């Protein structure tokens, strides 16, 4: 009780000089720690107690000085009594002060096991920006980081799952060749490949299939456009970017593959429902077969798959055993077995 009183009534001039060491140590410790509010409050109350007892002590000393001057004028005997009395008083106050300091020290040392400014990142600094229009930034950036972390977690998880299932039939002949796939420098080379390499690859695929004709043209610079003619069934336009398939468009054999300027039309979709569906499935196949590490193999697999459409209107669906269902032939081909299925009969 006395200590709190003293702290509030204590003189302002004496406080800073006497108390300087205490708040400094405690303040420095608190900045670094991650204390609970209760502990902090306790610390502060102890600090207040120290300051209160210190003030009391100084006040007593000052009182002592004034009193002795007055007493010297009247009585010497009472002076000695008085002196002994004040000495005991000062002693008790001093003891009190020492005790308070000790408890504070003990409390503060337990409060600050972690020291230093190392966790203060740029993000924290951004939060300190006083400009009102910048205050949102901190929050947004934090959300961003959180989502990044989530995406990263999901991708690692999905990578693990996909890596286990052997959907890509040609990429991993056996589990031992996993190390083979890790050829990171190959990625950048697929986009910028010499034209001869693309031509040679398409030529070799062309030789592989008797009834499928591939012609390469480059109407728009270095990237090739491959025109596929599959028997008398369909025509396809495949846009390559280096060795990666970028877009696939399938049209009927009768449909014009040139635009009004006489160039290859790589955008206009087919007018026929069947080939619109085949185009959709071919785009899906393109994504399925895409593997940036083995681009030539992915193109080869894609064309093998596309070649399986040579019996589009004649082969019945594997599941329902009908050719026509929903007024459409089986327009979907299984990626590995190349078996025909209707869009809605897919396994």
């Amino acid at each position, binding site marked *: 009780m006395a200590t709190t009183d003293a702290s509030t009534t204590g003189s302002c001039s004496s406080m800073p000089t006497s108390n300087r060491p205490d708040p400094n140590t405690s303040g420095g410790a608190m900045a670094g720690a991650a204390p609970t509010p209760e502990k902090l409050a306790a610390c502060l109350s102890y600090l207040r107690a120290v300051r209160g007892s210190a003030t009391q002590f100084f006040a007593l000393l000052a009182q002592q000085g004034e009193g002795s001057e007055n007493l010297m004028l009247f009585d010497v005997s009472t002076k000695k009594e008085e002196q002994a009395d004040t000495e005991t008083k000062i002693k008790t106050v001093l003891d009190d002060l020492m005790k308070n300091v000790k408890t504070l020290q003990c409390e503060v040392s337990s409060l600050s096991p972690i020291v230093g400014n190392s966790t203060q990142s740029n993000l924290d600094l951004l939060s300190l920006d006083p400009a009102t229009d910048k205050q949102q930034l901190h929050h947004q950036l934090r959300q961003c980081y959180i989502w990044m972390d989530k995406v990263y977690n999901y991708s690692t998880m999905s990578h693990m799952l996909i890596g286990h299932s052997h959907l890509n039939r040609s990429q991993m002949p056996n589990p031992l060749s996993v190390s083979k796939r890790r050829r990171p420098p190959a990625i950048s080379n697929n986009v910028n490949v010499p034209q001869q390499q693309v031509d040679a690859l398409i030529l070799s695929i062309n030789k592989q299939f008797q009834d499928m004709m591939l012609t390469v043209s480059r109407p728009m610079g270095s990237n090739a456009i491959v025109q596929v003619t599959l028997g008398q069934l369909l025509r396809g336009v495949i846009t390559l970017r280096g060795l990666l398939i970028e877009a696939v468009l399938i049209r009927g054999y009768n449909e014009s593959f040139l635009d009004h300027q006489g160039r290859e039309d790589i955008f206009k979709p087919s007018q026929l429902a069947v080939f619109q569906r085949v185009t959709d499935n071919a785009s899906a196949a393109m994504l399925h077969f895409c593997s940036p590490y083995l681009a030539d193999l992915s193109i080869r697999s894609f064309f093998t798959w596309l070649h399986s459409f040579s019996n589009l*209107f*004649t082969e019945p669906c594997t599941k329902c055993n009908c050719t026509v269902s929903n007024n459409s032939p089986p327009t979907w081909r299984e990626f590995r077995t190349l078996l025909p299925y209707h869009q809605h009969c897919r396994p």
Partner: protein
Amino acid sequence: MGVTVLQTFPDAFRYGYKEVEKLHTRIAHLGAQPNGVFQVDCDTYYMNQQNSQFNDIPGSGSTVNKKLHILHNTETPASTYAIIESPGKQVTLCADLMFDLLLPRLSHMYTAKKNLKVETKGTRFTVSDFIVKIGSVSMSSGQYKGILVEVEYLACSVPALCWPILREFLQSFMGFCVSSQPPPYLQARFQQVQGPQDTMQQYLEKFNEFRESSAYPVTGSLSASQPGTTSTSTPS
């Protein structure tokens, strides 16, 4: 231009309109949308015999048995199809509509038989990539003859590549009057790319069948179709 199959729908009791209605509802169940009307007509010209009336040359009979069929199809409204039919040979010419104006100039050689004009008209349906035309065949006199169903599959132009899908589609709304073998006309051209002329030749084939079928019950039209009785009325 896709592959076209022409199929006669049996109508033994000559219900006519009722049977057509039945086909309409069946095709509607497949999701077909009515999409306008169509008409295919066929005029037939015979080589004149008037000269042999004056001067009967023996042996000239071998060359006179020629028929010139002029067909129009609303699917290709700017074209006239002229099919010349002589024993064992058929030549189909695809010409501009102006060809019709040329015919009166050939009147010294070929004359039209007005009462042999035959036409089919009806509703045109589209369903996915199929075009279905259900027409009722009638003579110029208005005499009802039967039902002709034309199915065209737009996505393919070679019969060999799409006969299974066409057959299944035809059977799905016409039942088992569709044989599992392709019609003889398509069978003869199984690996060839089909064009509009092939459609018209199939129509002519069917029209001839209808005319011949009428020859037995209706004796009057048979005598009119004989080359020799002259009704030299030329269209102008």
